């Protein structure tokens, strides 16, 4: 039976089978950030252990950093403490650290790829569930908890059960104004928030083959919202062209040898999978969430659903979502007024995301009363965007142009919703309280759709603004 990429990469990294039946899996790249690492380093100290492969460990600060008023010490003393702690840990354990004073700093899942650290054929772990992002390069990349961060630091390994592999094939062509974000929201809407539990997702087909690396990253990023800890795309010429010349990518002849190995990793046409799903990319409209989990999606042309449209045992949950979001069944989602517009996050904070949003924002104005911010995913993205003048397009339109970080995705830094504010967001989670107010409300959508909502003052079909 022909192997898929997952099989090849998993087997290459299997150190040994354990008595429990699980695998001791070697982790080729360990990415670290300030929130999920302090206790892990503490546990190493408690047990007098060292980091086994410091040369395969890279750290940054992203979750708690402010995106405005970056002066140290931070106004938030707890955030300042965490920065001091990761600086200390990186120094003590000899780990490269891309901190705020370093031009390479940014959201961990943005900087790994742009620095060429993320490569095909690796296993990649990080104490963050959106580690699935790096699967876009044909790596097995997944999120882990703090005790597992400790395990990787000390042994460069994890104890893992092997998941099954589901091939998700997307045929056809995405329409104008429809992006990778719409596709992944459509997939999660179709397969459900727990549909992927126990699976790695392999994304493929004409639509995915045509995507650039940044779109592939958006796609893989939200695999975990569909329950799949791992999501990946087979490496191809698009992947190799992206990696060529990046600081940590192989250079010169080593790069050509690498490309040869990377090509060999891709799933063959006769590869076997545990399950297959087909989607028609051409049938997807701009998609957004209406509720309190990423599976509660609808088309921008659609109406808020009624609990009656769901199986009996799901109705109470649907009603809870309707009540929290203050929506009524049958209400059209387009035209819903918004209070806040957020463009950024590890899902959609890259240069192509900012370009698409800028296309919508150019020559238009953020609706008075709407707070709109654009947060580049890394300092490198920020510089590149400024070199193209994107920041001027945004500021002239009335968006705030910020420093790099996780920002309003997740309530750990000063960028937060207030009260019941409704936010059009290019992030990845719409759970209750996610964006910093216990009663705040989130509508997930593509960055172009966020820009459309910002200039309209309400949810709007971006296809009419392009």
């Amino acid at each position, binding site marked *: 039976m022909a192997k898929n990429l997952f099989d090849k990469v998993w087997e*290459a*990294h299997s*150190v*040994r089978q*354990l*008595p*429990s*039946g*699980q695998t*001791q899996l*070697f982790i*080729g790249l360990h990415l670290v950030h300030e929130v*999920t690492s302090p*206790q892990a380093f*503490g546990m190493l100290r408690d047990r007098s252990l060292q980091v*086994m*492969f410091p040369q*395969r460990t890279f750290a940054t600060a992203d*979750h708690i950093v402010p995106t405005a008023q970056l002066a140290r010490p931070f106004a*938030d003393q*707890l955030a300042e*403490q*965490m920065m001091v*702690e990761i600086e200390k840990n990186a120094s003590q354990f000899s780990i490269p650290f891309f901190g705020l004073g370093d031009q390479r700093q940014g959201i961990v899942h943005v900087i790994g790829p742009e620095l060429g650290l993320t490569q095909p*054929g690796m296993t990649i772990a990080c104490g963050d*569930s959106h580690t699935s992002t790096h699967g876009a390069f044909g790596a097995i990349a997944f*999120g*882990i*908890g703090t*005790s*597992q961060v400790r*395990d990787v630091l000390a042994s460069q*390994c*994890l104890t893992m*059960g092997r998941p099954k592999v589901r091939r998700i094939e997307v045929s056809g062509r995405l329409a104008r104004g429809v992006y990778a974000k719409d596709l992944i929201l459509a997939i999660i809407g179709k397969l459900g*928030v*727990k549909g992927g*539990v*126990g699976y790695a997702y392999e994304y493929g087909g004409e639509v995915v083959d045509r995507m650039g690396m940044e779109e592939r990253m958006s796609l893989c990023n939200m695999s*975990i919202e569909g*329950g799949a*800890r791992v999501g990946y795309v087979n490496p191809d010429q698009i992947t190799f062209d992206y990696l060529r010349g990046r600081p940590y990518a*192989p250079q010169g002849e080593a790069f050509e*040898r*690498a490309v*040869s*190995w990377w090509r060999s990793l891709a799933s063959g046409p006769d590869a076997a999978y545990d399950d297959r799903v087909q989607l028609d990319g051409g049938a997807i409209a701009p998609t957004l969430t209406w509720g309190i*989990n990423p599976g509660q999606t609808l088309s921008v042309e659609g109406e808020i659903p009624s609990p009656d449209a769901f199986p009996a045992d799901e109705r*109470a*949950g649907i009603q*809870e979502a309707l009540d929290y979001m203050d929506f009524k069944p049958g209400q059209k989602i387009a035209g819903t007024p918004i209070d806040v517009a957020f463009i950024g996050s590890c899902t959609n904070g890259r240069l192509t995301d900012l370009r698409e949003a800028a296309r919508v924002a150019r020559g238009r104005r953020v609706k008075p009363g709407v707070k709109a911010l654009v947060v580049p995913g890394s300092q490198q993205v920020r510089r590149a965007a400024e070199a193209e003048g994107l920041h001027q397009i945004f500021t002239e339109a009335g968006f705030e142009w910020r420093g790099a970080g996780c920002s309003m995705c*997740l*309530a*750990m830094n000063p960028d937060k919703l207030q009260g019941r504010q409704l936010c059009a967001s290019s992030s990845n*989670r719409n*759970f*209750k*309280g*996610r964006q910093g107010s*216990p009663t705040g409300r989130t509508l997930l959508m593509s960055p172009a759709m966020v820009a459309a909502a910002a200039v309209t003052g309400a949810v709007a079909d971006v296809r009419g603004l392009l």
Partner: protein
Amino acid sequence: MNTSIITYVGGRAVPVRGDDIDTDRIIPARYLRTLTFEDLGTHAFEDDRAQGKHAFDEPRFQGSAILLANRNFGCGSSREHAPQALMRWGIRAFVAESFAEIFFGNCVALGLPCFTAPGPELARLMDSVEAAPLQKLGLDVERQLLSWKGGETAIALPEGARRQFLEGTWDALGQLLEAPDLIRATAERLPYLNDFAAAT
């Protein structure tokens, strides 16, 4: 004798109703700004609790060791702070219709078994625990059996995790460090760690 071996968890139970309860609700992100896990117990479900009646605030459920849940419990963020908060509140095991994968793995790392049971069984259990909160539940890891006021019911733990609890290897680091030569041998075979010299 391996004192880490876990074969049984017993205690009273607290039902936390609702599907897709995510880790942001279990422990809000503002509490992740911490260098230790120590003070998390009092903040478990804090924002849900502020919205009104919550099982974690009810006197009859204080001191529970077993948390009963519905589908996809612990979805969302990988934060280990979520099971840490629940553990420090007093929880030692979970029974739900299904769990999110990263949450499940974090619980294993802390020695907290997550058992599954079918939806109708959970409904019966939750109703019973609400009516008779003082009853003691017993979770048998070896036999995959839950004993409660209504009798005995089959529960499931995936085989790999089950064996980790029975062997005492759920705290994985010791086992992972047993074979440093094999770890280094794996590193030596990986093309990207060897300048792709060995690549075909």
